[in-house]
C-alpha cells in the first residue's frame, strides 16, 4: 500500500478576478522510503498540492479529489482533531524561508519542545534531553546553548536545521520539503540537502522534495513529477527523466540548464512552447 495516494486533485482559489484553478487533476503517489521530487516553475502549483494535504490552504480554496489517502486513511474525512494527530506527527513539512517560519517571540528550545509535548506527551527533563538529541542530529553545534536562542539570532541555514529538527521530532513517516534550500547560500544548500537525504535514508521515511532546481532533483530524487500550470507534464524515475525526457516541457527545462548549453544562445522554455503546444 502506498504511503500517500492522491488521485485527480483539483484546487481552485476564489480570487477578485474570478476562480483560479491552481491544480487541474493531478495524481501523486509516494511509497515508504521513497524520495519523490515535484519540479516546476513558479505558478505550476507544486506547493499547492502538498499544502492541501497538510490542510494549510486558506478558506478561499476549494479542494476536490477522487482519492486523498495517507496509509489508506482518507484525509478528507478526518475530524479536525484526528487531522491534527496526523499533521506534525506522521506527516511533517518544512518551508522555504526558515527564519520567517519560526516564531520570533519564542526560543528555539520552546518551539521544538511544543511538538514533543503535543504529540509525544513528553514532560520536563525528557523534553530538554530529546531537544538536545534532535539539535545534535541535525548538526547544530553547541545544542545546549542554542536552546535559549531566538530565531533572529541564528543564520538561515541554522534555522532550517531547526525546522528539520522540528519536522523529524516525532519520527514522521513522510516529510514534505517545500523549496527548503531556495533561500539559502549555495554552500549551505548542499549541507542541508545532504542532511535531508541522510535523515531520509537513516529513518526510511518518505520524502517529497518540491523544487524548481533540476540540480536538486538530480541530487536527491528517486522519482520525479514535472508540473506546469497546474497539470502534470511527465512522471518518471530520475535516471530515465534525465536521459530520455518524453514531454517537450521536460526537454525544455533540461535544455535550459546552463550545463546543457551547446550553442551560443541558452534556449528558454518559450522556444519549446510552440512545438510542445503547452
Amino acid at each position, binding site marked *: 500500500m502506498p504511503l500517500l495516494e492522491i488521485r485527480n486533485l483539483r484546487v481552485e482559489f476564489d480570487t477578485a478576478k474570478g476562480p483560479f484553478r491552481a491544480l487541474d487533476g493531478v495524481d501523486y503517489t509516494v511509497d515508504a522510503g521513497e524520495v519523490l521530487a515535484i519540479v516546476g516553475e513558479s505558478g505550476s502549483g507544486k506547493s499547492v498540492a502538498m499544502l492541501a494535504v*497538510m490542510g*494549510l490552504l486558506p478558506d478561499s480554496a476549494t479542494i476536490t479529489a477522487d482519492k486523498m489517502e495517507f496509509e489508506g486513511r482518507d484525509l478528507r474525512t478526518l475530524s479536525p482533531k484526528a487531522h*491534527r494527530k*496526523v499533521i506534525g506527527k506522521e506527516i511533517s513539512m518544512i518551508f522555504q524561508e526558515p527564519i520567517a517560519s519560526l*516564531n520570533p*517571540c*519564542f526560543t528555539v528550545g520552546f518551539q521544538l519542545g*511544543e511538538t514533543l509535548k503535543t504529540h509525544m506527551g513528553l514532560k520536563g527533563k525528557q523534553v530538554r534531553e530529546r531537544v538536545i538529541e534532535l539539535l545534535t542530529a541535525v548538526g547544530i553545534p553547541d545544542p545546549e546553548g542554542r536552546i535559549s536562542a*531566538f530565531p533572529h539570532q541564528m543564520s538561515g541555514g541554522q534555522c532550517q536545521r531547526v525546522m528539520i529538527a*522540528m519536522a523529524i521530532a516525532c519520527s514522521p513517516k513522510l516529510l514534505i520539503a517545500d523549496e527548503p534550500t531556495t533561500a539559502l547560500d549555495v554552500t549551505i544548500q548542499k549541507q542541508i540537502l545532504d542532511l535531508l537525504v541522510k535523515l531520509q535514508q537513516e529513518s526510511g521515511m518518505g520524502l517529497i522534495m518540491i523544487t524548481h532546481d533540476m540540480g536538486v532533483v538530480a541530487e536527491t530524487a528517486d522519482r520525479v513529477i514535472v508540473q506546469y500550470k497546474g497539470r502534470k507534464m511527465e512522471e518518471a524515475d530520475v535516471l530515465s527523466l534525465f536521459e530520455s525526457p518524453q514531454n517537450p516541457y521536460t526537454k525544455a527545462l533540461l535544455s535550459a540548464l546552463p550545463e546543457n548549453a551547446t550553442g551560443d544562445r541558452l534556449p528558454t522554455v518559450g522556444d519549446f512552447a510552440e512545438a510542445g503546444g503547452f
Partner: protein
Amino acid sequence: MLSYALRRLVTAVPTLFVIITVAFFMMRLAPGGPFDSDRALPPEIEKNIAAAYDLDKPLFEQYLIYLGRILRGDFGPSLKIRDFSVGELIASGAPASMELGFSAILLALVIGVSLGTLAALRQNSGTDFSVMSVSMVGIAVPNFVMAPLLSLVLGVYLDLLPTSGWGSGELRYKVLPVIALALPQIAYVARLTRGSMVEVLHSNFVRTARAKGLPPRSVIGLHALRNALIPVITTIGLQVGVLLAGAILTETIFSWPGVGKWLVDSISRRDYFVVQGGLLLIAGIIMLVNLIVDVLYGLINPRIRHN
C-alpha cells in the same frame, strides 16, 4: 533592562524641568489673577494676601521659590480652596481618578483584544464587518455625547444604575463612568488588534505552528496573539494621554470625585499652583506609562532586547 529603565528615568528629569518652567510661565501669562472675581478688598488686605503667596515678588524670583519648593516635595497651596495644599488635593482626588483610568484600560484591553481577535478570525464575514463598523462609530462618538446618553438610557429610562457620584464606593456607581470612558478605547484597541491579527495570521510562523499540528488555541492564543499584541502595547502609551483627556470630561459629567474636574476649574480660576501641580502630575504619569510600555515592549519582542 534595568540600566535602560534607569537611563530613561534620568533623561526624564530635564523634560520635567522644562514642563515645570513652561507651566509656570504659561499660567502667569494668562490675563487675570486668582483673586479677581472675589469681592473687592481693601488694598492693604489685598497686599497682605499677595505677600502671603509671594505674588508681589518679581516673576523670576517666584519661579525660583517654586522650584525650591518642588525639590522639597511641596507643590504649593491652593489659592482658591483654603486650607488645602496642592499635594493634599491631589492625594484626595487621585485614587478615584486612577481607579477610573485603570478600570477603563483593563476593560479596553480585555474586550478590545477579544473582539479584534474574533473579527480577525472571521475575516470579511458578517462578524468582522459588524465589529469593525461598531468600533468605527465608537471612535467617532465624542465622549461627552455618549456619556450623557448612556446615563440617560441606562440610568434614567431603565433605572439600572446611578448616574452620578461615588456613593460609598459601591460597584454600581463605577459602572457608567468606566464604560463611558472605556468605550472609545475598546473600539480603538479592537480595530488595532484586528488589523495586526489579520497580518500575523497570514505569516509564515503561524503556518508552521499549524503544520506542527498544534491545537487552535495554541496557534491563535499563543503564537499569533503574542506577535499581534506588539503594536497594541506600543500604542497603549499614547492612548493613556487620550484617556486622561477623556477622564476629565467623564469626571465632569458624572460628578466623579477625581482630579480632572478641579483641574479644569482651576485653569479658569487661575489657581496657579493647582494647575502647575496638575500639569506636572499628568506629565509624570504619561512619562511613567511610556517607560513601562517601552520596558514591556522589550520583554514581548525579543528582537529589541538584543540590540
